[in-house]
Each structure stands twice: as C-alpha cells, then as structure tokens.
C-alpha cells in the first residue's frame, strides 16, 4: 500500500546552506509520525516544504497519491492537508473574531452551511458558542490554540501537520491540547505529522518518529524504541539523556 505522504531525496538550500539535505521518509495513512530535532535540524523546514509554504529545490513529494513540486499546490491539496502552528499568539489574525477566522476557509472553498460548521467546530474543540464572536486578543494561549485546531479541522482534512503545537503553552494546558488532538485523530481517522523538540510529547503522541540533525534524518525508530533503548544513533541517545533532565554527575 502506498504511503499517505512520501518524500524522496528532498533538498532545500538557502544560499550554500542545506536546510534539508536529501531527506526521505514515508508516512502511512492513519499513523502518527513524529519528527524530533533541535534548532537547525530542518524539522520545521520539512513541514513547510510539505505544506507548500516553502519550496524545495529537488526531490519528490507525493501526498495522498498526487505528486507536487516546489510550492504549487491545488485546492484539493488544501482540503487534504492542514497545519497547526507553534505560536498561538501569531497564528490568529489580530483583528478578526473567531467567527471570521473560522469562516475564512469555508468561504474560500465555497461552503454554504457556515453557521452549522462553525458551531460544530467550536464544539469539537471544547469551546462554547460564547467564544464565537471574541477577538483573538481576548483569548488565552490554550484557547487560541484550540481555535487554531478548529480552523485546521474545519475543512475536514485527512492529514494534519503539527509544528510544535504545544511548545508555547503551559504544561497543564499542553496536556489538554494533546488530549484534544488525540481525540480528534481518533474521531476523524487523521494522519498526523508532528514536529517537536520534546521527546516526551513525541513518544506520547506518536507511533514512529524520525530524529533529525543538520538537515538529515539520523534514524527512524518506533516510539517504543525510546523506552526500550533500542535505537542505534548516538545523537538519539544524547537527546534522550537530555530529556531526562539535570542530574548532578
């Protein structure tokens, strides 16, 4: 069975610097795939290249059976793939109400039953109708991220790209958002590609993960491997040790 997302030899360069250095990976339908790395690893560049927000110089990208190149994407692509961004304070338009924010994707794709869909979207992310006409500066970080998720899900995509969706949130809010994401994935049979620097979050949410460093995939392991220490790369070990916190050694 062909993969939902298939990336072969993707190269992204800025001047002489290779942000993505011949990266290949596959994401199966219905799986939750994690990408872990530190800053400069290329993990966010990978998501942006898949989504079309950034172009790629060479390589192939196949999503749900269709091939895409550079930055050109079709409307069908946007109905299939959506993204949740990292910064809840930057990913919502500062001058628009929640209603307007959720209306936009529906209007672009020509949906007519907007009121029903908006109400349902708010409900799905655990926010009541009272939030519908608030402005984004009247919402907390967790609430904003819920709106961002509602916006991503309102077009009923099959694939959700998640760029560090909880890094900017408090720990207790993070738990709520992660639970919400899991619920949504279960209910809708989504495929997740989640980028994070936090091994705990990735191992909780994902079944398989790829470790990236300096634009390359170091290794791809099942999440179990982290627990059982069944990985091979040194860098993965370093990340694991670092995630365990400080110890006076």
């Amino acid at each position, binding site marked *: 069975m062909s993969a939902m997302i298939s990336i072969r030899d993707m190269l992204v360069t800025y001047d002489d610097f290779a942000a993505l250095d011949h990266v290949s990976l596959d994401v199966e339908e219905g799986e939750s795939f994690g990408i872990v790395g530190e800053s400069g690893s290329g993990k966010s560049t990978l998501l942006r290249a898949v989504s079309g927000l950034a172009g790629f110089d060479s390589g192939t990208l196949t999503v749900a059976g269709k091939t895409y190149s550079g930055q050109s994407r079709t409307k069908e692509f946007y109905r299939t793939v959506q993204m949740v961004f990292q910064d809840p304070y930057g990913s919502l338009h500062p001058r628009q109400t929640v209603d307007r924010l959720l209306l936009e994707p529906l209007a672009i794709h020509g949906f007519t039953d907007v009121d029903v869909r908006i109400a349902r979207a708010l409900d799905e992310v655990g926010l009541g109708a009272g939030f519908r006409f608030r402005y984004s500066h009247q919402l907390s970080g967790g609430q904003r991220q819920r709106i*961002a998720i509602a916006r991503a899900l309102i077009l009923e995509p099959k694939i959700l790209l998640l760029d560090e969706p909880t890094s900017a949130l408090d720990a207790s809010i993070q738990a709520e958002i992660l639970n919400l994401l899991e619920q949504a994935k279960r209910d809708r049979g989504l495929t997740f590609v989640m980028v994070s620097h936090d091994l705990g979050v990735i191992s909780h949410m994902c079944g398989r993960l790829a470790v990236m460093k300096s634009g390359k995939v170091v290794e791809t392991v099942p999440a179990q491997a982290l627990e059982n220490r069944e990985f091979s790369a040194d860098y993965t070990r370093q990340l694991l040790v670092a995630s365990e916190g400080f110890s006076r050694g």
Partner: protein
Amino acid sequence: MSVVEPLKPYSRAWLLSDRPTSRHQARVGRAYVVWRQFSENRLALLGLFIILGLIFIAIFANVLAPHNPVQGDLRNSRLLPPGSAGFLLGTDDQGRDILSRLLYGSRLTLFVVVLVAVIAAPVGLIVGTVSGYAGGWVDAVLMRITDIFLAFPKLVLALALVAALGPGIENAVLAIAVTSWPPYARIARAETMTFRNSEFISAVKLMGASPFRIVLRHVMPLCMSSLIVRVTLDMAGIILTAAGLGFLGLGAQPPLPEWGAMIASGRRFILDQWWVAAMPGIAILIVSLGFNLLGDGLRDALDPKEAGQ
C-alpha cells in the same frame, strides 16, 4: 453553567461583554473600547470637537452666516474693524463680512481635505500593500514610482499640475492628492512587510487563498490604523497646501471664500487692517490644530498593542 440573563443591547455591560453573541455586538463593543481609550485623552477630545465644529459649520453655513459671503456693500462697509455693528470679525476690502466668508469657506476647506483623503489614501494603500506583499520586481517598480513622486517638493509639484490643468479648486484638489499618496504607500508597504511572513498569513495561504484575497481581506485591515492616523495628521498640511495654492491664486478662484485666498487678498492691508488676513489665518490655525490633536489621539487609541480590554 448558570443561566445568564441576556444583556440589554447597547448598555455598558453589553458593550464590554466578553461573550458577544453576534458579529454586530463584537464590532460595536470593540469600537466602544477604542472610543473609551480615545476619550481619556482630553486634548484628543478637543481636536474631535474642533473638527465636528468644522463639519457643523460647513453644513449649516447658510443658516449661521449673517451676511452674503460673496457680495458686500462697497460704499458703506469697506474694511470695518472687528466688533463693528453687525460685522463680528470685520469686513474686507470689498465690504464683505469676514465671519460669513469664513463660515462658507469652511465648506471649501472640508471639500479639499475630504477629497484629497478619499483619493490619495486608497491609492497609497493599494500601491503599498501590493508592493509589500508581492516583493521582487513589482515592489521595486512601484517603489521607484513612489520615489519619483516623493522627490518633488509637494507645493512645487502641485503648482506645476495646477499650472498645467488650469486654476480652480478641483484641480487644486487633484494636484494635492497626487502629491500626498506616496507617504501612505510607504506606510502601507512597511506594515505589509511586517505581517507578510506571520503565521496567520501562512495559515490563510494554507487554506488556498489567492494573493489578491490575502492582501485585500487580511493585510489591508491591518494597515488601516496607521493609515488613518497618518491621513488625519496630514490634513493640517493639506489645508496649508490648499491655502498656499489659494494664496498664489492657483486654487479657489475669486469670489470663493477660500481661506488661503482670503489671506492672499488681505496681505495688502496687513499693517492697518490686520483682521482681513489674520482672521482666516486663525481659522486655518484652529482647524490644523484640531486635526493634529485628533490624529494624535487616534494614534494612541488605535495602537495595535491593545493592552487588555
């Protein structure tokens, strides 16, 4: 959750509610918050009052003016000082009541200011946002065109245009508008470039929005407050430019009571009958001040860093 009584529409609680139940309530509520922020500034309120006064006078000039602004009594009422019977601010060299001329002249002032704003601001906004969002050669070309217009001193370019088109207040308006749009383009471009790479724009791109839609519906609203502030602050300058053109005889033509033209014709008598030139000068001063105070107040109130509601 306990049942909450519906709030009385347009009451203070309704306006400040953090759970608005309709688009209308949200919008009006936000406007109310901006108003509250604005009205804390006493000087800004003064500016607003002056401008509202100007508009009121312009509308009701025919009711308020005691005399005919264009026809005067040459024989009896030439160059009467302020405070003379029936002539509160005196008369000019053609026996016309200065107060009435000022009141009717407010219409011309308002005409100039509003038309220039209505022409120049949208042009600047469109050029700036397109330039800022598109980048590349579109940006380069549009900005060079803007630079060309900016390189000319405003008054000189306006003069040249009016000289070419012929004197008259409509041509003066056009000339001033042509020289006023470049700064708005610059502002709009700078704002657009700040937002161009924000995540909320990326999010909208990811929905499949066309660049046209993004610029029109997402970027332009963000440039609005800076632009409104800048236009308001510019209005004082526009009035002065129109007055300058009028002073040079290239704006409003006699006998129209345009304030700048009044100053020009009163120049001859400035030593002995100072009021003929000074009164319109004071009027220009007050209106310019009004626009400046209003613009300052708007800038504080429309600050995008809304520090809580």
